[in-house]
């Protein structure tokens, strides 16, 4: 056996333009995460994962490599997104929604982007499962997007996750022009009385259980998504398992977020990422966000019509799951017109409804496509 420098040049020899480009994409994601603070908890690990996976001959993505191990441990079997949902549930306060149950419907309207985008993707020639995976970006919900696209079109997991997380931070930029375009000043001035009512602990505990029993029975494919979200909320609201609540929303959430980001990033390899598809996904993704907002606004205008002018249509924009960005956008725009208009608590209700609705819509999509 002799040692030669030739074997040390393999790395450079195996560097391709594609992998160089992917490394640049990884750097871009890290830039967005660090400088623009776009969802850094996810985009930073995704970016780092993409770079490390695209280094020439990277052992990280070999059969026993760290990223492969993490991907098998929690992405392929959907464990990580579901654990993230337990954490989200343990951090969410459904109080404003329970105080104001009709806000539920706004959450439903805010899912139109999923189906609208799905239609467009079908027209662009994507096959059904791919189109549904692109549509799910309209859930505006990272773990839901990962969960659904990994089941329907795992080869598109990378671009879809990146699109979902990147745009989520753009909500305060994407929504306002649409909101201004679709509502009149008079509508934006509508005030809505808000009376806080105490929600008993009993209701707070029954609510998550009832939700996963009802949704799980009607749409079995939604059980994992809604079940874990509501399980986390049940842990929190029960008040007797603080240690489990803390473990879910801290230790588990942090560890899993890191691993999930790295594993998702490692799926972004030149061969699957550098396609026209990816550009299409980026374009359709932003469209999905817009459609969600528009549908929510129009539905809220309809509610305003039904209630004879006593429902502020701005609230429609809050029916998506980008929490709490969407609710804040609504409050801010309402205040621009009338400094004393106070829509925040209503918007919070719609916003948490959007979270539930996103998860439900994800399950419905899986059920309709008969995925398994």
């Amino acid at each position, binding site marked *: 056996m002799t040692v030669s420098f030739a074997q040390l040049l393999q790395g450079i020899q195996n560097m391709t333009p594609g992998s160089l480009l992917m490394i640049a994409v990884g750097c871009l994601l890290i830039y967005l995460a660090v400088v623009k603070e776009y969802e850094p908890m996810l985009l930073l690990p995704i970016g780092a994962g993409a770079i490390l996976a695209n280094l020439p001959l990277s052992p990280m993505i070999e059969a026993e490599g760290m990223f492969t191990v993490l991907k098998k441990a929690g992405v392929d079997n959907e464990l990580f997104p579901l654990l993230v949902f337990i954490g989200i549930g343990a951090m969410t306060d459904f109080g404003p929604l329970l105080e104001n149950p009709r806000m*539920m419907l706004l959450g*439903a309207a805010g899912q139109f982007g999923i*189906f609208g985008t799905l239609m467009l993707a079908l027209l662009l020639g994507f096959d059904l499962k791919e189109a549904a995976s692109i549509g799910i970006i309209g859930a505006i919900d990272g773990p839901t997007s990962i969960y659904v696209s990994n089941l329907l079109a795992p080869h598109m997991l990378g671009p879809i996750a990146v699109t979902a997380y990147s745009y989520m931070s753009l909500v305060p930029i994407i929504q306002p022009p649409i909101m201004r375009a679709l509502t009149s000043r008079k509508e934006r001035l509508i005030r809505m009385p808000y009376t806080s009512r105490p929600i008993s602990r*009993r209701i707070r505990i029954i609510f998550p259980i*009832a939700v996963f029993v*009802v949704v799980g029975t*009607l749409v079995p494919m939604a059980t994992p998504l809604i079940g874990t979200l509501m399980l986390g909320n049940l842990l929190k609201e029960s008040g007797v398992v603080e240690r489990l609540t803390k473990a879910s929303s801290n230790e588990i959430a942090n560890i899993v977020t890191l691993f999930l980001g790295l594993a998702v990033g490692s799926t972004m390899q030149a061969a699957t990422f550098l396609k026209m598809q990816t550009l299409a996904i980026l374009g359709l993704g932003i469209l999905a966000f817009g459609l969600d907002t528009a549908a929510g606004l129009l539905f809220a205008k309809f509610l305003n019509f039904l209630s004879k002018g006593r429902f502020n249509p701005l609230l429609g924009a809050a029916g998506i799951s980008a929490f709490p960005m969407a609710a*804040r956008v609504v409050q801010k725009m309402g205040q621009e017109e009338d400094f004393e208009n106070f829509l*925040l608590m209503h918007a919070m209700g719609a916003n948490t409804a959007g979270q539930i609705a996103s998860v439900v819509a994800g399950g419905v999509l899986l059920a*309709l496509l008969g995925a398994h």
Partner: protein
Amino acid sequence: MESLNIGIQLTVFGMGLVFLLLAVMALFITLLLRFDRTQPPMEEPSGPEYPAGLDAEALSAITIAVTMHQALRRKEAAPAMRRYRPGTRPSRWVNVGRHLQNTSWHPGRRVQ
């Protein structure tokens, strides 16, 4: 067009189902709230018990120390992961807003 046809079907069924499910939940909560109307009024949560013999100054010093510790912890946490997301707890500002909204008479102001 076959694919458009499927897309429309999916949209109709899908959005219908999502609306149906959320409407069921809204209805359910409404019933639950009505059913729960009989609940006793919520008690004021009793404050933490202070050791005997503490005067107001000592208490305030302690409170400040604890508050600062909390503030530090909160800064440490990344925004996306705060225990209570900003806005979910009524802040002083929120309370003022609630008050204004719920008071019907604003002297010298336009009321719609």
